[in-house]
């Protein structure tokens, strides 16, 4: 009986050592994801639950224009952006990355939830360089700058919950910035 107890204790000790060693090696060697990466990933999660966004867009040198973005059936499933100047942009849900890059950039700037989430996710997946700083957008914000090649997407996130408050985009096709308000979930 005693020998069985010794065997069990030694086995448990070896198993625990393996667990502790494995965990320690991971914790000691692998870097923790930077705060900006985690904030951007959390923003993706939040955006995934939202359907409507209202925004004020500043594209290039053009005057500010208001935008309203909705996700739903129009009649195909996708995202529809209606601008204050009457322009309407639609991206079908199934088209995804194949959509017109200029339209897509407008949708990103307008904070259209699914499109913005997809743009952030793609930059994170591609190993974009991420820089974080403090910013002010009428209220304190966390500025997360995601850079990949010649494209830089800057997210202005609420410090708690990481909901996007605004976006700035610099790409070869479109440059602009926006203030975003998510109407309701």
């Amino acid at each position, binding site marked *: 009986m005693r020998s069985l107890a010794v065997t069990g204790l*030694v086995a448990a000790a070896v198993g625990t050592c393996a667990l502790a060693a494995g965990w320690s090696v991971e914790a000691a060697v692998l870097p923790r994801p930077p705060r900006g990466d985690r904030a951007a990933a959390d923003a993706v999660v939040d955006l995934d639950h939202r359907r409507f966004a209202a925004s004020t867009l500043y594209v290039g040198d053009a005057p500010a224009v208001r935008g309203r973005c909705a996700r739903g059936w129009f009649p195909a499933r996708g995202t529809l952006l209606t601008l204050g100047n009457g322009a309407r942009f639609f991206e079908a849900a199934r088209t995804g990355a194949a959509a017109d890059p200029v339209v897509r950039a407008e949708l990103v700037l307008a904070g259209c939830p699914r499109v913005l989430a997809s743009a952030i996710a793609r930059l994170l997946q591609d190993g974009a360089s991420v820089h974080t700083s403090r910013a002010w957008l009428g209220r304190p914000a966390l500025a997360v700058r995601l850079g990949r090649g010649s494209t830089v997407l800057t997210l202005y996130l609420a410090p708690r919950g990481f909901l996007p408050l605004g976006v700035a985009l610099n790409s070869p096709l479109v440059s602009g910035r926006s203030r975003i308000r998510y109407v309701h979930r």
Partner: protein
Amino acid sequence: MIDVPAVEHLDPFSAAYAWVHRHLWMVGWWLGGRAVVFAAAAASSRSVGALHTWDARWYRIVASNGYLLVPGQQSDPAFFPLYPVLLRVVHAIGIGYAAAGVASANVAFPVALVAFHALTRELLGDAIARRATVYLAIFPLGYVFSMAYPESLVLAAIALAGVSALRGRWGLAAAAAAGAALARPEGVLVTLPLLVAAWQGRSRLTPVRSGVALGSVLAAAGGFAAYPLYLDRVLHDPTAWSRAERAWGRRFTPFGAVRAVQHLPQSFAGDHWVARDVAATVCYLLLLAAAARAGAPRAWLAVGAAIVVLPLFSGSFTSIGRFGLIAPPIFWGLAWLGRNRMADYGLRVASIALLVAATATVPLAFP
């Protein structure tokens, strides 16, 4: 008086020389096989960069930035941590991640060959061990052992755990088993042959040694569990691995294998290369049957079958060709098929030809 034979016996250089001399054939097949892989990769459209494509970028991102789960999107917690840990360590000595990835895999592969040969010799004798090791060195999908992937590392760890257990080196078996499980989820399956070896050797072991032997079984489970615990620490989500897998369309269900077969026409329409994985699955199952005929222990056959069949329950055939590379019985089955000289010669020629073709097409198809 100096005991000359005893001094010679202790001389590490002589011992190493004798060992290398005994294993020159293995060195030859290893170098030959890798030369074929590197030459074919160099001739491909992406040159040797082909060996650092596909999932290699995910391992590089984990090594350089750490884990990050992007829910609903393909993200890196789907990849187990030991290989990125190794990449980061090698990178720390001044080697770029791409070179570190390919170098790590190619350094681990000869270790895998040696451990696999030793394991096979213990279980099935010298003749099968030699043939199986040759086939492993030139296996058609074996180009993966030279890619920035963890397969060579996992095979080395599994074989080392197995042979260490058979030789009663339970501490080493525990370390290798934990390493295997920390490198790929299938590594945890090595628990089965370790458990059998511990049970069969129980009468010869003291209670403490029995504890270490049983501990080697738990070590694999411990290595496996270390990953979700780490994910809980950095991502506050111990299930991040399975959530990330789902974004790749992999979700384990009891009827996943049925789903994989049912969806085969759509999978094939989307990507013709899935036919390669289906063919590999069928070949692997036949080779496992051949390994059973060769007298392979049931525990190892169960490991091989689980490595090949379990991924099907995630609803997809994709990558089973690659997953099977870490199942030792597959190569034992091949060695049994090559037991007469003509068959052996034919298998070697066919393997090399297919290895060239498979390597050259790496830029076209995800392995």
